[in-house]
């Protein structure tokens, strides 16, 4: 159902919902960015709509709500394990259309690829998703190329213009709370074009895996992993055991975000490692995002949010890389004919 209501009314509804839910949305953190004197926009808890940064793209994605940067899996003593408690409250997450598609990518890994992930599922099952529209494209976005510029898969859509709030609700509790509000026909704002356009090669032959093409990235990438950490579809982690010093026998096992660009990602005992070259790590990531994930799961992994391009301190552009790779693939195919 579509409604027109006021910010004041919406804030009371959220105040009410906050008994059962923590509300997460992109917020502006002043002077906290990658580059000096630049703000960062990342997810945090809000209690009032005015705290939400609607006008700009968030530097970090919502993924940390479902996949915390560091998450305790269980507590142990020498002979006992106890699953970490789930948060008491559910979550409400404000996010954009591309990120809603990103959620599907996370679902695929955490709910479908092998065993169901207990920790992801228990958060996911108690999370509601509120779509934020995009009136115009942000810098580096290429959602239209990836087909993620619209999504119906939200619990609610919210558009705030001054005191006026337009809502499209797919959520019974919200419909109930908005009973009496003016019915309206509400269609989420979405873009139809981006300045950045990518063309993804249909297939990338394995012979191009060690093409000199990747060397440029090897020379430039500093393996900081930021591109992975901001990406809503990067989901890798590493296990970490922590023990409490005051009692050497007790501790906890956590999982923490991992990055395929950072040293150590493939390290095995005895000093074996794969992809020591940073260019090869770029190849591994790029082809996962727009090649092999699709072969396995049917859709591209990348949702075109452009955050990796926004964040890279070496100005490496993932979008450019795809386009250049496409040219390389086509040129190689021509040469072979």
């Amino acid at each position, binding site marked *: 159902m579509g409604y027109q209501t006021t910010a004041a009314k919406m804030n009371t509804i959220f105040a009410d919902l906050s008994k059962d839910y923590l509300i997460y949305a992109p917020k502006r953190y002043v002077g906290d960015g990658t580059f000096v004197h630049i703000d960062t926009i990342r997810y945090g808890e809000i209690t009032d709509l005015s705290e939400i940064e609607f006008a700009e793209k968030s530097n970090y994605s919502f993924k940390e709500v479902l996949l915390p940067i560091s998450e305790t899996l*269980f507590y142990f003593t020498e002979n006992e*394990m106890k699953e970490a408690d789930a948060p008491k409250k559910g979550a409400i997450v404000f996010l954009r259309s591309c990120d809603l598609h990103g959620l599907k990518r996370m679902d695929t890994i955490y709910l479908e690829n092998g065993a169901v992930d*207990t920790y992801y599922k228990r958060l996911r099952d108690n999370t509601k998703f509120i779509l934020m529209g995009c009136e115009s494209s942000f810098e580096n976005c290429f959602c239209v190329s990836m087909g993620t510029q619209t999504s119906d898969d939200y619990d609610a859509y919210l558009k705030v213009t001054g005191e006026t709030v337009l809502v499209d609700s797919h959520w019974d509790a919200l419909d109930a709370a908005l009973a009496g509000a003016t019915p309206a026909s509400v269609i989420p704002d979405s873009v139809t074009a981006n300045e950045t356009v990518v063309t993804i090669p249909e297939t990338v032959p394995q012979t191009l895996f060690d093409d000199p093409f990747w060397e440029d990235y090897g020379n430039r990438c500093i393996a900081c992993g930021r591109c992975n950490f901001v990406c809503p579809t990067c989901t890798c*982690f590493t296990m970490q055991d922590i023990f409490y010093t005051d009692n050497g026998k007790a501790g906890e*096992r956590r999982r923490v975000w991992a990055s395929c660009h950072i040293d150590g990602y*493939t390290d095995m*005992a005895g000093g074996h490692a794969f992809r020591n070259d940073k260019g090869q790590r770029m190849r591994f990531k790029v082809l996962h995002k727009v090649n092999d994930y699709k072969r396995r799961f049917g859709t591209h992994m990348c949702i075109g949010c452009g955050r990796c391009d926004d964040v890279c301190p070496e100005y490496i552009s993932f979008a450019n890389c795809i386009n250049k790779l496409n040219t390389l693939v086509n040129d190689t195919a021509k040469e072979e004919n």
Partner: protein
Amino acid sequence: MAELNPYIPFLSEITEVIKHTEIEYTFRMTYTGDVKPGQFFEVSLPKFGEAPISVSGIGDGTVDLTIRKVGKVTDEIFENYVGDTLFLRGPYGNGFDIENYKGKEILLVAGGTGLSPVKGIVDYFSAHPDDCKSFTLLVGFKSPKDMLFKKDFEEWEKNIKVVLTVDYPDDDYSGNCGLVTHYIPELLVKDLKEAVGIVVGPPVMMKCVISDLLAKGFFEENLWISQERKMCCGIGKCGHCKIDDTYICLDGPVFNYTKGKFLKD
């Protein structure tokens, strides 16, 4: 809670410890449930972390884990196994399917600890030699000191053909020397269209052996390998083991060579 939490390990009792070398022991662990050779368990030690370890033998209510002491987790296992139990989770991975090899001429080539994941296959055909046309086990160790499963070799030699070689012999050693590849040309294969080759060991060894077997006339679809990669979860989540569109922990670690040859890190 509908689904079991796959990250929480269970306690398994150590019923026996078989010492092969200074740094390689087999831990016989209580386990009831389906399990295949080539599958693996995550040995999960609170405070130290986890290590994926192949099933090196399957008994009645037990599985064998042959562990090499190389670092944080495995050191702790060796130093403190007197605790009589270990935490495990698994089994994971596809493992070897014995059915694929029944009724065939089988050549199994293993290098060093690579013997662990395939030992269950050797055990099976040594106990049921009539289930295959012939079984040849070709194994190489670095030196006589590095030999694993000495007792089992005595048993196997009664039932199947065993060719054992070491790279670096010592003064007391009188058997075969040199790399396993040295012994491939002299192996007689009756029907190359049907003959099965199973190859597990360090990456370079696998590459050389496979290339020799192909040169000998083995068919790609009759060759099988097992891969090792970094693994933090064993259940398709952590991403570390992924190669191209393949998760080694889910789709492997055992691969038919027609698929395995395309795995490019």
